[in-house]
């Protein structure tokens, strides 16, 4: 019985291979986008873990200086001699011939092995690591990059090491970084039984509890959440296709189900057979999807890596490794998705009356009920979204808001379209127009899933596009303000710097020192800059919040400026105070925007900076030039071959480049999502096409050519796409607002003014019409070339 039943059920797919293809395609695409994004996330997280392991202290409590400054050797020795199991760490950047290198100094004698990156496990160890010149442990890629770098200790390349970072003995690191102190001490193990309390041994240090994750992971979490949200969106869009295909296959097999039941196949067994059938389809399509996802991930990963590097300074390897867990979750999500998509159809089969007439209008009227329910659900969700937008805070609330908004909007779409089409129908004259509107409205239940998919894709496109463009506009303007000097120069040494200043003095309008030190700000790594009291800064500085007399108070060293990220993260605004090394209660005079920088920053008047950090190098200068900038740059380079001269334009180009790459991934996913939506429309139309013959045949018989009918079909698709776009526009703008005002603030730490880009909308509208047109073209052409025979079958007696 099972065999016969299965054969009867499966023969359907044999007869309708296209449906099978649609189903598989939808499921595979959905799985692919989802698992592709997951693969990227997994790879990135693995990279962070590798990196975090060395940054040591991520999973252990650490000791830091209360004033955010450095820790001396004496303090370290005192702690060890008192029984505290601490291990010193130092991190910094070394400028090499081959570009900057992050150096991490560790003490292998006291650092727990668990804190080191996996790759160091393959390091057999060598006396040279500690004694003599020392060694740099680097990844093979970094090894190649540093091949010709002079002045560095010998490199040892180890697989599985994070890129662009070198691990070395703490003493070697101190030498390279020209420091004699440490950044922090890791508490490697509990102190000895009788060790005196920390407050007695090292009162200047504070114990900081272990973090659940690491800094990079925390910083990038929101970015990955973004990606995941996109993956989920794509998956949902794909599920619309699956839902359509399964629904149709079940609808068309209703007769078979009924016959099988009438012939004595128990309902349970029928259901079981169908579930088995779907499971097999889901697994095959899932496997296909995972493989496809791998391809997508491989293509996108380099851009993701670039983004993460640009935005957060997080290093992600560009190569993807296949992980079994990823296969498993890919297949699981495919099966789960199929289950969700098929649930309704299976329920219907389970409750199938043995004999019930199937009438298209009846179906449409049942859909009316469903549509009203959807509209109610939608109203509820939109209310939730509005409420969250009003009172909510935090990233999670932001994403819930996002979800409620999108799902709510999608659910409202059928109602919106139905009402709009009804209005058009009322306004229309002429029988053809009336029929067209009425018929279009009747197609809605069959098309609404695909149209919802399109709505989501369009809204995402508009929303993300608005965000990116707003960002770009703001960022460009901000760069102009921030990079006010015409030339930037870095001297190779302090001695050269003095000569350089002397040489420059008569040739430029102003020499603005750019001095900075790394420091702990608000409990996280950050930077402190010294700024000169010069109109270049005071006129151009992009302050988003300012107290009274900002300029004077900063210049006189009374108060400091901090960047927006730090302000938002620590809720510090003008009038509050912040602890700087050596200046525990620095009053904040203003907050400036600082896009594209992951860390906190503070700016101090130059004289005060000098007093606080006399050892900070004085090597970089911004130059105000009124004459020929290029000529000056050439002369400068000729006079000081060791100096690095960069013009403003180059820096801007670099910054914008980083920025552009930041959103490459988002753009790529956008395009993919839109393609999936187009696919959804195509498959819906194609499957509808066969069902529509009985509806079209009479119209044809009454005197319309097939070509005309085909045109109308095309027009209908375009119209629906256009209406969907109209509906998507406000949704997309709302989405943009959520992204800019809620998600971005949480994720990146800055809020951007929202700007509108109507020209992009036109482009997108054209694109969506094009997509819908393409999707409708094939069914329309098929209709216009349909042999009359096929249409006549509708009238045949022997139907």
């Amino acid at each position, binding site marked *: 019985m099972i065999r016969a039943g299965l054969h009867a059920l499966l023969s359907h797919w044999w007869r309708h291979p296209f449906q099978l293809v649609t189903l598989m395609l939808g499921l595979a695409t959905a799985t692919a986008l989802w698992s592709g994004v997951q693969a990227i996330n997994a790879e990135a997280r693995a990279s962070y873990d590798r990196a975090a392991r060395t940054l040591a202290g991520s999973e252990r409590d650490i000791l830091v200086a209360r004033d955010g400054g450095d820790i001396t050797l004496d303090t370290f020795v005192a702690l*060890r001699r008192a*029984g505290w199991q601490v291990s010193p760490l130092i991190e910094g950047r070394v400028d090499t011939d081959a570009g900057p290198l992050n150096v991490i100094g560790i003490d292998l004698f*006291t650092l727990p*092995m668990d804190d080191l990156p996996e790759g160091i496990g393959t*390091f057999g*160890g060598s006396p040279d690591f*500690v*004694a003599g010149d020392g060694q740099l442990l680097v990844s093979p890629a970094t090894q190649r990059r540093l091949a010709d770098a002079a002045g560095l200790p010998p490199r040892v390349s180890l697989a599985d090491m994070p890129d662009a970072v070198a691990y070395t003995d703490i003493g070697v690191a101190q030498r390279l970084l020209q420091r004699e102190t440490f950044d922090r001490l890791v508490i490697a193990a509990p102190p*000895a*039984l009788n060790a005196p309390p920390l407050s007695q041994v090292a009162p200047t240090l504070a114990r900081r509890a272990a973090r659940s994750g690491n800094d990079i992971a925390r910083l990038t979490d929101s970015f990955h959440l973004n990606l995941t949200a996109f993956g989920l969106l794509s998956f949902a869009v794909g599920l619309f296709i699956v839902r359509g295909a399964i629904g149709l296959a079940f609808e068309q097999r209703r007769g078979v189900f009924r016959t099988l039941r009438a012939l004595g196949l128990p309902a349970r067994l029928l259901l079981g057979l169908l579930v088995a059938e779907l499971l097999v389809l889901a697994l095959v399509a899932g496997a296909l999807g995972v493989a496809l996802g791998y391809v997508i991930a491989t293509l996108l990963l380099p851009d993701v890596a670039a983004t993460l590097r640009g935005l957060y300074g997080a290093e992600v390897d560009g190569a993807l490794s296949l992980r079994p867990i990823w296969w498993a979750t890919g297949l699981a999500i495919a099966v789960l998705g199929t289950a969700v998509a098929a649930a309704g159809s299976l329920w219907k089969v389970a409750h199938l009356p043995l004999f019930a007439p199937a009438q298209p209008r009846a179906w449409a009227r049942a859909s009316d009920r469903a549509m009203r329910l959807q509209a109610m659900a939608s109203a509820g969700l939109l209310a939730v979204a509005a409420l969250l937008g009003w009172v909510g805070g935090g990233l999670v609330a932001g994403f819930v808001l996002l979800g409620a908004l999108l799902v709510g909007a999608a659910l409202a779409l059928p109602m919106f379209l139905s009402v709009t089409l009804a209005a058009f129908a009322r306004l229309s004259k002429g029988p053809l127009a009336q029929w067209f509107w009425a018929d279009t409205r009747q197609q809605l239940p069959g098309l609404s899933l695909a149209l919802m998919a399109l709505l989501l894709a369009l809204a995402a496109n508009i929303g993300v596009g608005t965000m990116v463009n707003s960002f770009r506009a703001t960022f460009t303007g901000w760069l102009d303000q921030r990079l006010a000097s015409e030339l930037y120069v870095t001297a190779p040494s302090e001695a050269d710097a003095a000569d350089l200043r002397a040489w420059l003095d008569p040739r430029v309008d102003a020499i603005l020192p750019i001095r900075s030190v790394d420091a702990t700000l608000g409990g996280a790594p950050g930077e402190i800059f010294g700024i000169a009291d010069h109109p270049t800064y005071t006129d151009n500085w992009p302050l988003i919040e300012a107290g009274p007399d900002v300029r004077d108070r900063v210049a006189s060293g009374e108060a400091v400026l901090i960047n927006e990220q730090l302000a938002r993260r620590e809720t510090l605004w003008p009038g509050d105070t912040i602890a700087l090394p050596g200046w525990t209660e620095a009053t904040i005079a203003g907050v400036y925007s600082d896009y594209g920088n992951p860390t906190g920053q503070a700016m101090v008047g130059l004289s005060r900076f000098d007093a606080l950090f006399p050892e900070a190098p004085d090597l970089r200068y911004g130059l105000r030039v009124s004459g020929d900038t290029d000529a000056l740059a050439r002369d400068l380079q000729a006079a000081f071959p060791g100096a690095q001269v960069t013009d403003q334009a180059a820096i801007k180009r670099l910054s914008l480049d980083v920025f552009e790459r930041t959103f490459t991934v988002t753009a790529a996913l956008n395009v993919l999502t839109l393609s999936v939506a187009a696919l959804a429309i195509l498959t819906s139309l194609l499957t509808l096409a066969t069902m529509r013959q009985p509806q079209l045949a009479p119209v044809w018989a009454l005197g319309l050519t097939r070509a005309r009918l085909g045109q109308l079909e095309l027009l209908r698709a375009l119209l629906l796409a256009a209406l969907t776009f109209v509906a998507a526009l406000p949704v997309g703008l709302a989405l943009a607002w959520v992204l800019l005002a809620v998600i971005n603030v949480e994720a990146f730490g800055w809020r951007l003014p929202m700007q509108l880009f109507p020209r992009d909308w036109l482009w997108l509208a054209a694109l969506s019409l094009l997509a819908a047109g393409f999707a409708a073209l094939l069914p329309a052409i098929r209709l216009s070339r349909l042999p009359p025979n096929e249409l006549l079958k509708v009238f045949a007696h022997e139907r």
Partner: protein
Amino acid sequence: MNANRLTRRGLLSGLAVLPIAKASAQGFAGMGQAAGEFALPRPDTAITFPADHAPHPDFRIEWWYVTANLEGPDGTPYGIQWTLFRSALRPAPVTDGWATSQVWMGHAALTTQDSHFAAERFSRGGIGVAGVMLAPFEARIDDWSMSGPDIGHVRLTAAGTDFAFDLQLATDKPFILQGANGYSVKSSVGAASHYYSQPFYRVDGSLTLPGGAVEVSGKAWMDREWSSQPLAEDQSGWDWFSLHLDSGDKVMGYRLRGAEVYTASTWITAQGASTSFDNGAFSAEPLELTDVNGNDVPTTWAARLPVRGLDVTVTALNPQSWMPLTVSYWEGPVRVTGSHTGIGYLEMTGYG
């Protein structure tokens, strides 16, 4: 975790701190490695005090090794171990700064009849955390130290997360040169070390146990040894006995296991007169094995030095005195019965 421990061992072995016990290939803890350009022990080197209490950085390896048999007020026996190992990364000694060639490791243990606590410390020299100074005497790694006006009068401290000890050691008796005037041969093919001992320390002080503090007193024994290749290449480990006989005599005997079993021993009278015996005079034979950390370890021995009429059974106070550290071995207090009675310490390496 285990993998990481091995990693650490691998690392440290590479650093030549204390390498992997690779069966017989290079002997226990790499002590069979060729000495290379390090200084070598010579039979004609005269050991002088107090200078030789200080480190010998041109030798590859060296230790200050203290064991003590202690008793609580109620007669409960205890044992402690306090060891400072020095290792040189390179032959040319650099003693100051981060790039030092001198690396230090500390082991401390406290043994009772039913428990055994152990801890270890690592540090490089040159930065003020670990090292040995002569006057006043101080041997230190982190918070563990052996310090006093001179090496005959020191305070010995160590602490782990679950135990601690703080003891005063004192003696005015002479140091005992082992082997031939402190030149101690370890195999018939010539591996050797400089080796002297101080078996006469009297001890007072307190132990900190999970149950609380205990006042103790007893006897301690210090071994000082330095070399660059103390074991022959084929030697996989040793069984080392230091016994305080109730007669007041002290016995040191060791048995190096390799292609041949090589023994050496010293009989020290209560007055401090010593006689060293060459290979074969001393013998030790396992009587009972105990499963320790998954390996069969002899914890009862028949020890004999027939020339002095010694024929005793040496029994571990706590058979589970395993040191589960980066370099692991068995070390614990023993009881002596038979022709003589007494107490002592047993160290067995190369068993796991």
